[in-house]
């Protein structure tokens, strides 16, 4: 007598099949992250073939950008990207750390959450709106009210010489600073919050004032994490596009003065991509994108490593 077939076998087979394909589907979703990474690198590499073949590494150090004669060098944009980001960091990091200290050490508890929400709202303001505000509010204010006294006081430095247009490298840096304030503040705040309270209590126990506690027990402990927050801010600053494009002046001359117009990698792509009439021109713009991608991936990876190192130290302690 043959054994009766198990009536649930088909069901089992069915569910095994379902399980396997659902798992594969989810795996496909997760691996999209790597697919995207390869896709973006490949497309920019492939798109920049012509320019890479013609200019080689000299592309990175060439200071002429001349679409008419088809000579392309990226130096003015690399320079502008780094200078505007450096200005942004110089302004944003101290302000952000100060705010993070206020939020974790000083502010009345009832005020903390609303302030954090306000900073989140700040982060949500689109770049193009900062640019609009930059053109019509910030630039006139800087040109008439802020820059002349600045030039008067620091005009002996080449950085602050020359005519004041309002738009320019310094203005670009200021607008980027405003835009990276929220992320640097919120990461710094996370870092400061991860400092164990024992650390603070020990310092208070020695009779330290609140500032001394902050300086000795909190800031020295959180130094590396704050550095990580600054690097993350740098990563965002390098890629800021619209607002910078609208206020930096868009000139591919490298000038020593911060009042002079400049140009960044992202903003030259934004401005010229749809106007690129020849294949080589387009290819040069793709290579600028490739440079920008390389810079931001390296900087962001670095920032993630630093921030994660702090976080995992914390979780190890808790576990």
């Amino acid at each position: 007598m043959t054994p009766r077939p198990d009536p649930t076998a088909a069901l089992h087979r069915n569910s095994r099949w379902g399980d396997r394909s659902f798992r594969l589907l989810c795996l496909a979703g997760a691996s999209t992250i790597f697919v995207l990474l390869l896709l973006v690198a490949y497309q920019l590499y492939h798109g920049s073939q012509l320019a890479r073949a013609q200019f080689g590494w000299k592309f990175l150090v060439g200071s002429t950008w001349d679409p008419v004669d088809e000579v392309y060098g990226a130096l003015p944009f690399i320079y502008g990207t780094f200078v505007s980001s450096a200005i942004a960091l110089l302004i944003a990091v101290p302000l952000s750390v100060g705010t993070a200290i206020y939020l974790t050490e000083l502010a009345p508890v009832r005020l903390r959450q609303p302030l954090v929400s306000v900073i989140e709202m700040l982060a949500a303001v689109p770049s193009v709106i900062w640019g609009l505000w930059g053109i019509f509010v910030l630039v006139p204010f800087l040109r008439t009210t802020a820059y002349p006294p600045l030039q008067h006081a620091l005009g002996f430095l080449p950085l602050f010489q020359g005519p004041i247009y309002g738009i320019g490298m310094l203005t670009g840096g200021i607008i980027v600073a405003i835009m990276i304030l929220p992320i640097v503040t919120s990461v710094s705040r996370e870092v400061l919050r991860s400092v164990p309270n024992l650390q603070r209590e020990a310092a208070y126990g020695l009779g330290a004032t609140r500032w001394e506690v902050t300086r000795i027990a909190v800031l020295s402990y959180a130094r590396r994490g704050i550095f990580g927050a600054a690097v993350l801010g740098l990563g965002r600053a390098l890629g800021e596009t619209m607002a910078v494009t609208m206020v930096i002046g868009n000139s591919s001359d490298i000038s020593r003065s911060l009042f002079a117009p400049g140009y960044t990698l992202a903003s030259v792509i934004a401005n010229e991509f749809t106007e690129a009439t020849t294949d080589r021109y387009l290819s040069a713009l793709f290579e600028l994108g490739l440079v920008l991608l390389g810079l931001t991936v390296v900087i962001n990876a670095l920032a993630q490593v630093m921030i994660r190192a702090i976080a995992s130290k914390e979780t190890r302690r808790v576990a």
Partner: protein
Amino acid sequence: MAMSSTANHRYRRLKNALMNAVSILCAVLVISPLGLILFYLIRQGVAALNWEFFTHVPGPVGQPGSGMGNAIIGTVELLVLASLAGVPIGVLGGVYLSEYGGDRVNDWIRFWADVLNGVPSIVWGMVAYAIAVVPFKTFSAYSGGLALGFIMIPLVLRTTEEVLVLVPRSYREAGLALGLPQWKMISRIVLPTALKGIVTGVLLAMGRVAGETAPLLFTAFGNRYWSHHLSEPIAALPLQIFAYAISPYDDWHRQAWAGALVLIFLVFALSAGVRLLSSERKKS
């Protein structure tokens, strides 16, 4: 001896007060741009808002009855397209991280998702241009939606994972104990339980891309008229604001402010939705 210690004490107290004041000042400086931008948006924007602004397309300079209706609808269409591209992939990826992946693999995926998150949005525009504009020889709503979808994927993936791990283990065990296959347990128990959280993450990601301009410049491209098909160039609010802001006409500047007011309202409405959903989640 006693004197100097009092003096020292006073010096330390003074320094303390000073540094406290500095940190309060920092906080005020950090949040003041928000106040400034809202003030100008409302002051400049409200004046240019009227019914036509929402229903009409852009007209020649100074012509009354021109608006950004097509750009507002265009932005909504682009958001829908971006979500169609980004949400399923992001959610499935998040499910993989929370339900299947091992620790090592998950760490790698999270790490690179966060790095991708920092890739400038204009770069995604270039990728979408290369794969969705060049082959079809036309700017289109599809390519714009794709560019925004790229940006949404890592965001949705991370937030989905974060809410799925909050679903109690016992729910999963109960499902499995009833004999449900794992995929049914996930789709019938885990996902519905975390639905609000997932929606929150999606809204967050939509809010982030709603104001993106750079990736649309050479994908959606913008359009001064209503677009009738998704394979045509399409207007978007941020693009229209940009075009008007850098134009030389006062009338267009006024409209740019009005557009910016509408855009920020849209973005804040999305984040208000987030807040509402997440506060409900905390209550329940």
